[in-house]
């Protein structure tokens, strides 16, 4: 009966549509539930937590939390989960320290996997412990809420747009902490978001929801590069490329990042050789040339092959999906260029990458 991974079968009638999800998700890493507002992301998360009562089954790494067929439904407080709500949800009548202890003291000592020091240090809240919650900024509140959830040593961490209520500066303040969660904890995380940026930075696995239905579910890099999904229509259509640092160029102050499709040079980063680096390459920053002769200032030119075309947000443009040594790339070009260059499926071309963003 015990199977690794997160299995969700949830059917729940909502106001405008019925949430109907049947998902098999990896039992580790960050899985993002992504979709427009009101697509049922939060409802799905609430089903997993037992805050909503769907018909179906919820099984987390072999542990059954709900199974209608076997008449099992664990109430929320019996599920070993952590939940971070969208808005700061600290108890106003308790200090920061008492908020953190609220969950911790209900966990048997033998079950405590995340230590006090570790959680406090991980989220950088040591200096806030003796304050009241009213004196905290939005970002600080959310960090305390995350630490509070972690201290219950959850076997699944649910995060409902934990950054949505924050301005972009606070977001930048918290994102590094979330990345550390991802890197340092073995706990699987279900992360609800409608921000492509957050998804690109944090998620290993991606679930696309629309009107309560699962449109797609798969590894993030794979899904982002698919032309048939609404992600590609977004102004910010982009792909993720996982690379490793292969070396530094001292003369030109560049860092070389290698992946199966070639080498991408970026301005020098303080990364060790062999370190992992995830790049986000936006479709609008990729252009296509027919020959490999370098007659432009663009440094990163990768041989690639055209594997397909898709629509872009504007009718003047189209998306070209490229394959660079097995790694998908997206280029957004005008339909005029497509015809003038005679681009077609299977054609070998050169992808010229104007800029990349280093995510982590």
């Amino acid at each position, binding site marked *: 009966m015990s199977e690794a991974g997160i299995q969700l079968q949830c059917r729940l009638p909502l106001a405008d549509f019925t949430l109907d999800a049947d998902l098999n998700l990896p039992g580790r890493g960050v899985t993002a539930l992504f979709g427009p507002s009101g697509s049922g992301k939060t409802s799905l998360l609430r089903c997993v937590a037992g*805050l909503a009562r769907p018909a179906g089954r919820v099984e987390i790494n072999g542990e059954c939390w709900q199974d209608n067929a076997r008449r099992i439904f664990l109430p*929320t*407080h019996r599920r070993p989960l952590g*939940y971070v709500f969208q808005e700061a*949800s600290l108890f106003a*009548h308790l200090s920061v320290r008492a908020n953190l202890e609220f969950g911790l003291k*209900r966990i048997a000592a033998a079950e405590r996997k995340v230590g006090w020091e570790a959680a406090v240090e991980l989220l950088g809240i040591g200096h806030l412990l003796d304050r009241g919650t009213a004196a905290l900024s939005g970002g600080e509140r959310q960090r305390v809420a995350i630490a509070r*959830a972690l201290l219950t040593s959850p076997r699944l961490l*649910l995060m409902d747009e934990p950054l949505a209520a924050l301005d972009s500066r606070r977001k930048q303040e918290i994102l590094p902490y979330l990345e550390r969660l991802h890197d340092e904890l073995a706990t699987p995380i279900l992360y609800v978001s409608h921000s492509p940026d957050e998804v690109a930075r944090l998620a290993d696995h991606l679930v696309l929801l629309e009107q309560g239905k699962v449109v797609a579910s798969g590894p993030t890099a794979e899904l982002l590069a698919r032309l048939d999904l609404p992600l590609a229509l977004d102004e910010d259509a982009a792909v993720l490329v996982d690379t490793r640092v292969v070396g530094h160029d001292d003369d030109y102050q560049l860092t070389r990042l290698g992946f199966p499709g070639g080498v991408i040079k970026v301005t020098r980063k303080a990364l060790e050789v062999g370190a992992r680096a995830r790049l986000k390459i936006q479709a609008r920053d990729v252009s296509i040339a027919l020959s490999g002769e370098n007659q432009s200032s663009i440094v990163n030119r990768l041989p690639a092959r055209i594997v397909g075309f898709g629509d872009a947000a504007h009718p003047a443009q189209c998306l070209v999906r490229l394959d660079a040594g097995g790694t998908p790339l997206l280029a957004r070009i005008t339909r005029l260029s497509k015809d003038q260059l005679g681009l077609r499926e299977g054609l070998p071309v050169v992808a010229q990458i104007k800029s990349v963003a280093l995510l982590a």
Partner: protein
Amino acid sequence: MELTPEDWSAVRLTLELSTLVTVLLLIIGTPIAWWLARTRSRLRGVIGAVVSLPIVLPPTVLGFYLLVLMGPQGAVGRFTEALGLGRLPFTFTGLVVASIIYSLPFVVQPIQNAFMAMGDRPLEVAATLRASPLATFFTVTLPLARPGFITAAILGFAHTVGEFGVVLMIGGNIPDKTRVISMQIYNHVEAMEYGQAHGLAAGLLAFSFIVLLGLYAVGGRNGLGGGR
């Protein structure tokens, strides 16, 4: 205008009655307020209206029906006699029962408002932090609703201190048993002892003012009087 021993007896009885009634009301009113704040039952409107009736009903009407109900022919009267408790009218116990009904809405409503203002979120958060519903009630709900409870206690106490019509109908005017301050003032006025009446009446006036002052001070932070 010194207070007479009878006056002091009325003051003591009033304080005893109000304290006991307030404590009992907080115990009885909390589950009712919880239910009214959170139920989706269709009975909510009916129960809410019944609980609130004493706000609009003349106390004499309420007292009259309680008298009938608790009397030898009434359902409650027969029940208490069958239990060997005797009849409730014209006893201190009868007064306590009547006062609880009379002051119920003044206790239930502030607590209910506090529960409703709090919303579901703190309860959900507590559940995700492994707190059972009972633990949540004592460690989250009660502390968060504390201003509502303070308001409820003050209103329930003050309202019971001030009752007259119900006492007149159901308790009569028995020294040391049912003769509360408001009855004693009535007695003094009937006997044309205006000076004595003043002593007690001025005391009640000052008491009421202080209570409301305190309430509005709390209300500034919490709701009643301050407006939410």
